[in-house]
């Protein structure tokens, strides 16, 4: 039985292991932004609605405001910082720039991560499945078409 008051956890973020002390009530979002200083992960609603806090956990997109830090023991977390050298990811970044998919940029990291997940994992990726795939993230500048086109170009 493990009952944690405040415990040292080893977590793997962007292929680097960090040993940090976390309290059970800290979310993954808290740990990434406040403990590890990874500020590409944004937050706006803290309740699962906006998707801006999305990261990849073992390769799957999840909203980090709804994940407790203790749930990510033995899992690997990926944010955009960890993908900067990845060739496919770089292509996706360029596609976002080329298509004008970035306005204020607040939502961009989340869309890049989900776009990356979709291209890597979905066969026969069509416009509808991209629309469904990004459906949990809100772009306040509402440039969805450019975002969808950017992902579609790399399918």
């Amino acid at each position, binding site marked *: *039985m*493990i*009952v*944690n*008051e405040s415990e040292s956890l080893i977590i793997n973020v962007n292929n680097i292991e960090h040993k940090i002390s976390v*309290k*059970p*009530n*800290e*979310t993954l979002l*808290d740990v990434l932004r406040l403990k590890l200083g990874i500020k590409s992960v944004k937050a706006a*609603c*803290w*309740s*699962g*609605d906006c*998707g801006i806090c*999305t990261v990849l956990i073992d390769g*799957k*997109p*999840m*909203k980090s*405001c*709804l*994940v*407790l830090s*203790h*749930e990510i*023991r033995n899992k690997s977390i990926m944010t955009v910082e960890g993908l900067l050298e990845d060739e496919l990811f770089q292509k996706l970044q360029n596609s976002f720039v080329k298509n004008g998919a970035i306005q204020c940029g607040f939502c961009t990291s989340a869309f890049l991560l*989900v776009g990356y997940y979709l291209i890597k994992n979905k066969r026969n990726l069509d416009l509808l499945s991209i629309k*469904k*795939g990004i*459906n*949990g*993230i809100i772009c306040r500048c509402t440039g969805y078409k450019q975002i969808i086109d950017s992902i579609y170009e790399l399918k």
Partner: protein
Amino acid sequence: MNQISHLTLPEFKIVTPSTLREALSILDTNNTRSKLLAGGTDLLVDLRNRTINPNIIIDLKNIPELNELKQKGDIFVIGAAVPIADILKSKEVRKNFHSLYTALNEMCDEILRFRATIGGNLGTASPAADTAGPLLIHRARIIVASKKISREIPIQEFFIGVKQNCLMPNEIITAIHIPISTENEKSVFLKLKRNSEDLALIGVSAINYNSQTKLAFTAVAPIPILVDITAYISGNKRPNEEKFKEIWKLVKNAISPINDLRASREYRLHMTEILTRKALKEVLQK
């Protein structure tokens, strides 16, 4: 409406049992002070809003029994903690339980479906729970365990009030059992919502199997409602207008939609009738 007033969560301890036995025994000794955690898509929002304030959170995700997804004879077993994204990958679910598949495929959004579970949807027991209607028409049984006994609850006895189910504080849902019909079964789930990731304003489910026809309604009464309309249907054929009026009268008496900021009672009633017609058209023959 979500109105987040706290950026941090309240303080609690967390337990991550790896066996059902361990989870049940922790729950048994702490049942008034603990909360179960599956995907956290309801629980973390409630914690943040301080609508709950547990001392201990019991994370159920590492318990093998709660992660099963398989056919056992003529029953399909869905573990309570299986993420919806994984259930959607099952060919059997897609083939045998069309209405459930549709509901799961539209629930929350694709990102949240990597976390959200049916166990959690039933745990919250919202009147708008999307899995409730399909589980009602597919005759699901909720498998529940406590330290001393296990029991099976027919889904129609499970919901007892707004966000209330019949679980005892020391019980955990381990799985959902759904009978696989050998008959030619046709089912449908229709959901009215304002935008893509919204909770249902109305959910209507319908099934026709073995010459029985049933309807289920969510978000239009304090609990999900099952209405058996077999007596009004003959030869698996769609009812004529006169018969439909009788069916609608029965349904209208069973439901009690409310006025709230998302829709008025009149609109909900009107649209429930329209969706009921549409659902019957889909599961019955001309």
